[in-house]
């Protein structure tokens, strides 16, 4: 399965990765080789097989809904590149119309 340059660019946009031209070329080849290898999964009949997403057997692990103070919330927010009044500060997400 050969990935086109357009496909590589599209995946990079979805993944929020900016790739240099030589990276695009290299990843194009390498990803194609890896996808070729995993193609063999397609030959297995799994029509009746349930998928396994995790192996713990645990379902809906619940606990009391109570506040436990970590004691470090101030420090965590202050680690951010920008913060203000105990909040993370990021560039605006919505444009004014």
């Amino acid at each position: 399965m050969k990935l086109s340059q357009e496909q590589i660019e599209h995946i990079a946009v979805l993944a929020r990765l900016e790739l240099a031209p030589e990276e695009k070329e290299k990843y194009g080849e390498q990803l194609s080789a890896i996808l070729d290898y995993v193609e063999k999964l397609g030959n297995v009949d799994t029509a009746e097989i349930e998928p396994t997403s995790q192996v713990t057997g645990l379902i809906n692990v619940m606990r009391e809904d109570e506040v436990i103070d970590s004691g470090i919330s101030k420090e965590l927010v202050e680690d951010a590149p920008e913060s203000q009044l105990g909040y993370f500060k990021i560039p605006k997400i919505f444009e004014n119309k």
Partner: protein
Amino acid sequence: MLNNLTLLEAFVGLREKKFSSVELTKDCLKQIDSLEDKVKAFLIVDEDGALSQAKDADKMKNPSPLAGIPVAVKDVFCTKDLRSTGGSKVLENYRPHFNATAVEKLKEQGAVILGKTNCDEFAMGGSTENSGFFPTHNPWDLERVPGGSSGGSAAAVATDMAIYSLGTDTGGSIRQPASFCGISGLKVSYGRVSRYGVMAMTSSLDTIGPLAKSVEDIAVILPFLAGKDVKDSTTPDISVDDYSAEINKGIKGLRIGLPKEYFIEGMDEGVRDVVLNAAKKLEEMGAEIADISLPHSDLAIAAYYIIVPSEVSSNMARYDGMRYGFSDREGRDLLGIYLNSRAKGLGKEVKRRVMIGTYALSAGYYDAYYKKAMQVRTLVKKDFEDAFKDVDVILTPVAPTTAFKIGENINDPLKMYLEDVFTTPASLAGICGLSVPAGFANNLPVGIQLLGKRFDEKTILRVGHQYQLNTDWHKKKPDLNNN
């Protein structure tokens, strides 16, 4: 030199006041000082912190077996106020405000944390070459890799810089470097040890475990790490065994399976001989060796390299330059910060996996890749369930080769992935696996892999320990003056 001691020997010496933890810690630091230029096992050495913890440990009354014992911790574990990079430039200056549960538990016992060991970036790799900082060198041949991703943790123990270390194993990252460096390493059953505070790679597969100079030492360490943690909801409330007692039982009558799919074309002859000789030895010791089949083994690695990148692409989304870690604020808009921070902060292998995972999970491909891989995971898991109806333990090679040269596989990611062919099936099944030194091939150490049922660490530790009572492979040490 006290740093040459095993954990149990060091514990006895401390208890009998033959030496202090400060003396033991100083010897470890001295060893780091003299060999680190060659081996490059550590990203951070915390000399002051270690000596102060050692002083505290020397004052403890009724010290536990871990009190005052120097340990090296893989850098994917968060350590309070001690830089924790995950081997990534993205977290080059990150100082966590909390300890991972595993680290906290060791600290409660009075452990001495020497520093943080090198690893492939966020544990993605099998050679430690994907570290964002520098590669680690195999102490048996400095031109070769120590394995990975817990390569620094393995090299530090193999060179007696640390008495034991902590690593993580998602698809072989404890077992393979333990094999390449000639030490013992345990991948626990998924959920046996809390993952809280350990940087996530593949959340449905990541496990935490010790690397040590003997299986007996691992049996001492494990109870202090294992058990339910409210901060990790994937840790079931299953009792923790008395491993140190269990390992003393003999192995007469125990059934050990040799799966034919693990003795494939293309594997190193020397490695094969080591595993078959180990089987012979175990038979002499009274175990029954049985030929078994795990028919979906050759599909496991393909499924693994869909599931892993898929979860990686999701887990790496947190490194966005907004809340912590490296942030490139040149381009002022949101997208610009994401793109620049991730482009400059993340390394090649991380980006490669994010790309594969993003593709596998993208619209139109989910059923063909991710869902298919999860179904094959069911088949791999069932193979083991069926096999364990017949045998108690499964014996296999850890890796198809001995340690390869630094740079040898770096431009061929698929070849690098195939190195994990014998370790990933157990990871998909969530069972436990132990790597035990069993000989040499090409003048390099070779480990055997002992696989056990979920939460049956006691049986593989027992086989490993009994094997070490009858062999000396785990006592062999690299001679760094000759290479």
